[in-house]
Each structure stands twice: as structure tokens, then as C-alpha cells.
């Protein structure tokens, strides 16, 4: 099976006041039709920029795609015209964002905003579009869809707004749905509702999902495969079980070990053991050197790590570490 979306050696740079910095330095990723790929990492690792790159929405200025290829359904969209990109956006590739509170335009009704996407990509009368809006709102589980279509965003709760965003995203039956931290701003019960909805929609329409998150729990629950990112690179990649059960990169291990796992030893009256720590912080992009970007925080790092950047090699699954699998 050929991938639906494929990034190869993608480079994205940004102009900042520290000069030009590399936000993505040679990312390669495949998204297969109908699967859910998770992209996980701390803030500043480049996961949201990867998502925007897939949409062709890197803000320019200050961003520039300076190398690599983005292929969607076999078509190189790095070379596609703006017109072609606009055709794909919203119709074949759709996106939902982190902040449902600010992602909808406050001066239009939610019905109008969904209808706008429908009318843009489908040959349909306004009345038909309106009917479809109601249907979509029903699909995403919004009660009283007729009344809600006439609501403005501020009249809806955060969870409802994220449902509206999802309705808008699936309005043209896209092949790929990119979800950038879709539940970070929401309460946990609402997060669960949104995740359940995304799963239902995937089952119903067969849409492939790219889920961007910092939450390993969400990765476990939602994804088939995972790419772990650090400082603008993919440092480990594999099936979700591979990554969660046999992580090879010390960073991935740290990320998993530092989470207080809910439900583990729930009935134990003993104190839970201390969490694993990753010392230090993610280095700023303009201070990245030649070696492994994680070396500064890594207990396994040696001079070789600081001098030579490890390539992404298959060591059971792809991992970019000179000491993959070793334990400190």
C-alpha cells in the first residue's frame, strides 16, 4: 500500500531575531490511508510546524520550506500552485486545532462557517449546504443541530466548539485529518468525548488521522504508529506498542518514565516510586550544534554523541541514537 501523505527530508526554516533557525531539519514521515499516526514531543520540538507543513500553511514570512518533498496521494504538493493547494485544503486534507475557543471566527454563526467550507469545495446550493450542515452537526453529536447552527461560537462551550471544528473538517469527506493537540485546552471528560468522536469518525469514513500531542496516554489510546520528535527531528519511530513497550531512545524512555501512570498500582497503600526525570530543558533552536541535540540532557551521552549527530537507523525500529537500547 502506498502512503497517503509522505514527507521526505523536509526542511523548514524560520527568520527570527536570532537570525535564521532550522525548525525542521530533514523530517521523513509516512501516513498510511485510514491509520492514525501520532506525533509526540515537548513544546518547541516542531510537531505543530510539521502539521502546518502538511497543510501547506507554513506562515511565510517568517517561515520557509527550504528542502524536501511533501507528497499527498502521489502528488508533490511542495510544487503545487496556490490554487491547487487551496483545492486540497479543506477538501482532501482538513485540520483541527488546539484552541477551540479562538479557532472559530467570532462574528459568524457556526452554521455559516461550516457551510462556507461546503460551498467552497462542492457544487451545491445554499439550501442543500444548510441541510448538510445540520446533518454534520448531528454526526458530531451536537444536540438540537438546527438551533445550534444559528449560534455564534461564544454561545457554545469549548467541547461544542471543537465538535463544530470537527464537523467543518469532515464536511468534504477528507482523506486526511490533522489534529493538532485537539484536546489540550479541554477538560478530561470532554477530551474523552472528542477522542471517542474522532474514533467513530475514523471508523465511519475511513479517514487517516495525524494526531499531534504531548500526551503519551493519548498516544496509547488513539494511535497505530508513532513518531517521537525532538528539536526539529524525528528521533524514533514505530508502532505504538513498540514505542511504549520497548522504547530505544533515552529521550522516549524518559518521556514515558516521567508520567505518573494512572491506574498502575492503584490499590497499593505504599507510596509510588519517584518519577523518572529528564534533566534540563529543550535547547533553543538557534543554539543547536552538530552533535545529538539531546546529548546535553542525556545520561548516556559521550563525546561521540556531542560531535556526531546519530542518523535514524533501524535497530528493531527506526531510532536516532548511538546508544539505542542501552541503559544508563
Amino acid at each position: 500500500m502506498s502512503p497517503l501523505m509522505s514527507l521526505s527530508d523536509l526542511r523548514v526554516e524560520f527568520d527570527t531575531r536570532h537570525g535564521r533557525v532550522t525548525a525542521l531539519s530533514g523530517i521523513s514521515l509516512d501516513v498510511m490511508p485510514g491509520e492514525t499516526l501520532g506525533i509526540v514531543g515537548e513544546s518547541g520540538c516542531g510537531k505543530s510546524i510539521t502539521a502546518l507543513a502538511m497543510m501547506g500553511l507554513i506562515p511565510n514570512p517568517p517561515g520557509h520550506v527550504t528542502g524536501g518533498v511533501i507528497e499527498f496521494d502521489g502528488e508533490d504538493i511542495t510544487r503545487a500552485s496556490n490554487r491547487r493547494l487551496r483545492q486540497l485544503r479543506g477538501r482532501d486534507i482538513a485540520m483541527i486545532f488546539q484552541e477551540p475557543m479562538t479557532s472559530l471566527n467570532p462574528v459568524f454563526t457556526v452554521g455559516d462557517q461550516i457551510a462556507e467550507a461546503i460551498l467552497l469545495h462542492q457544487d451545491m446550493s445554499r439550501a442543500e449546504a444548510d441541510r448538510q450542515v445540520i446533518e454534520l452537526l448531528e454526526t458530531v453529536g451536537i444536540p438540537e443541530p438546527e438551533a445550534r447552527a444559528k449560534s455564534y461560537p461564544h454561545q457554545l462551550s469549548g467541547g461544542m466548539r471543537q465538535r463544530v471544528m470537527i464537523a467543518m473538517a469532515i464536511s468534504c469527506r477528507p482523506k486526511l485529518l490533522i489534529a493538532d493537540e485537539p484536546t489540550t485546552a479541554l477538560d478530561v471528560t470532554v477530551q474523552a468525548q472528542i477522542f471517542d468522536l474522532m474514533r467513530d469518525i475514523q471508523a465511519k469514513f475511513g479517514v487517516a488521522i495525524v494526531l499531534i500531542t504531548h500526551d503519551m496516554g493519548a498516544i496509547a489510546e488513539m494511535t497505530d504508529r508513532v513518531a517521537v520528535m525532538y528539536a526539529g527531528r524525528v528521533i524514533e519511530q514505530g508502532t505504538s506498542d513498540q514505542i511504549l513497550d520497548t522504547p530505544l531512545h533515552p529521550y522516549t524512555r524518559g518521556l514515558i518514565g516521567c508520567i505518573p501512570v494512572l491506574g498502575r498500582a492503584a490499590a497499593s497503600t505504599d507510596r509510588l516510586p519517584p518519577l523518572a526525570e529528564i534533566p534540563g530543558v529543550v535547547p533553543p533552536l538557534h543554539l543547536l550544534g552538530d552533535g545529538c541535540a539531546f546529548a546535553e540532557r542525556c545520561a548516556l551521552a559521550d563525546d561521540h554523541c556531542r560531535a556526531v549527530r546519530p542518523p535514524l537507523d533501524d535497530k528493531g525500529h527506526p531510532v536516532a541514537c548511538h546508544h539505542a537500547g542501552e541503559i544508563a
Partner: protein
Amino acid sequence: MTTPLLSARKLEVSFEIGRKGFFGKPRLLRAVRGVDFDLMPGRTLGLVGESGSGKTTTAMAAIRLAPSTGGSVSFEGTDLMTLPAEAMRAQRKHLQVIFQDPYSSLNPRERVGAIVREPLDLMNVGDPAGRDDRVRELFGLVGLRPDQMSLFPHQFSGGQRQRISIARALATNPRLIVCDEPVSALDVAIQAQILNLLRRLQDEFGLSYLFISHDLGVVQFICDDIAVMYLGEIVEYADRPTLFSKPRHPYTAVLLEAAPSLLRRKSAGYRRAGMVKGDLPSPMNLPKGCAFASRCPKAQERCRAEAPVLRDVGDSRVACHFPLD
């Protein structure tokens, strides 16, 4: 049995929000509705809930950083609610706070050394000359270098700022620290550093924490006792093993079901057993019966008619007519 360090009885907080019409009655939002809790010395009591549950308001009202409209709170036998302003100010030496947002909880115009020193100055702790030594000691305790004392907050990362916040809270050797979602604004890797630090400090100084969080994983890691809040009320109150292994209130069960966990795998065909529908009802017009009834999978006629009160069920205290086994 030891006496609690901090205990609240029938704590109430209401806000006036707007009026209906020009001369209408002010509308009341009841943010905290009759909350009771006891925090034992050396232990950590977690207040858990989603946004709108009133957990932060409860804690802030308990130490009089937010006005309460009813009830009493006693701290080491002193009723804080009736204390005159000056006496309350003196008590603050013993009750400190660590805030949620590392970016807005430190005054950007002050050097961090001065920020940590300020409580010592305001509370007249120790002699002025010794205070600098104390600040240096505190920096060491929270894992910062004393030479960083002259820097400004914006020169630190989020995790470091939270350490500064902790140092400030520790300065006066308080007995109680209110931790208001101290790690929820941090990246997971940094979260672990801070959680471990908080626990180490507790062991070292015998601190008691009132710990507010929405993250059940964090609560399970750090808390000894837990109060689950929903719309301004405690719906379940139990110690950690009891709550996490045997949730009695349907809302607690729902929270546990909703929170993502590494143990639930898509690859293993995980499907959520069932989830509440809809959103929180408006706190402006609360239902007559149980506040959770409108979303509860187990709600019955009685739940909508009659509000349940907190009562003993097994090892827990639960406010539910039909608690889970």
C-alpha cells in the same frame, strides 16, 4: 487520632454577577457550596475536578485569599474566617501558596532573589543580615544556583520559575502550602522534576500540602487523601488507594475512565466503557437534586428530586444516592 492542621466546615463562596435588568436583584453564582475537608499534618490532600468545579476557589477561600460567604476554616485551632486583618497577616507566615502559571506568578520587575526574600522581609523573619543567607539556602534546596539570585524571572525557563515559586513559599518555614495546579502548565518532563521535588521537600520539612489538580495521574502520584469536586461540592472523599481502586461516585468513575493512560491501547482494541454526555450545567441555575444527575449514567428519579449528602460508604465518603460497589 491527630487533630487536622486545616479543616473547613460548610465553606461557601458566592459571586454576584450582573443584575437582571436595571434595578433587578444581583444574580448569585454559587462557586463553592458547603465544602468540608480536613487536612492532616504531614499529608497531602488533593482537590480534584474539572474547570468550574470550584477547587481553586475552595482552596483560596480557605486561606482567605478569596472572600468566602459562609462557613468556617480552622488552622491549628484558630478560626481564620473571623481573624482580624493584622492577625491574619501574621498567620500567612504558616500558610503559603505555589501558583499555577510560572509566567505570571513572579513579578517581572523584581530580581528573583528579592522575590524569595520578600516574605522574610514582610513577615520579619530572622534578622535582616541573615535573610540573604536564608535565600541562598533556599535556592540550593530547590535546585537553583545561588549566583542566579540577581537575575530577573524572564531569564528562567518555566520549570525553573516554578522552583523559584517553591523557594518563595518555603521561605518562612510554613506548615501548609497550597499548591494550585503547580505542574499543569509545564511540559511532562519538567512536571516530573517538580513533582519529585515537592515530595522530597515534604519529607524533609514535614510539610502539608493542599494540592489542587485536574490531572488524576498527578493526584495519584502525590496525594494521600483526595476530594473529588463537581460544581462546587465534594462528591467523593477518600484516601488514595480506596479512591483509585474502588471509586464509589459515578462521577469519579467517569473521571477515571476519561483520563488517558498508558495502560489503554488502541492496539489491544480499547474502547471506552461509556462516557458522560454533554457539558457541565450552568452554575447559575443548578438543578434541585444531584448536580451530576443530568449527565449521570445511573441517575434515577430520586437523584433529580433530592440532593444527596456526603455519607460513609465503605472506606469512602460519597454524595450519591446509588453509589457504585
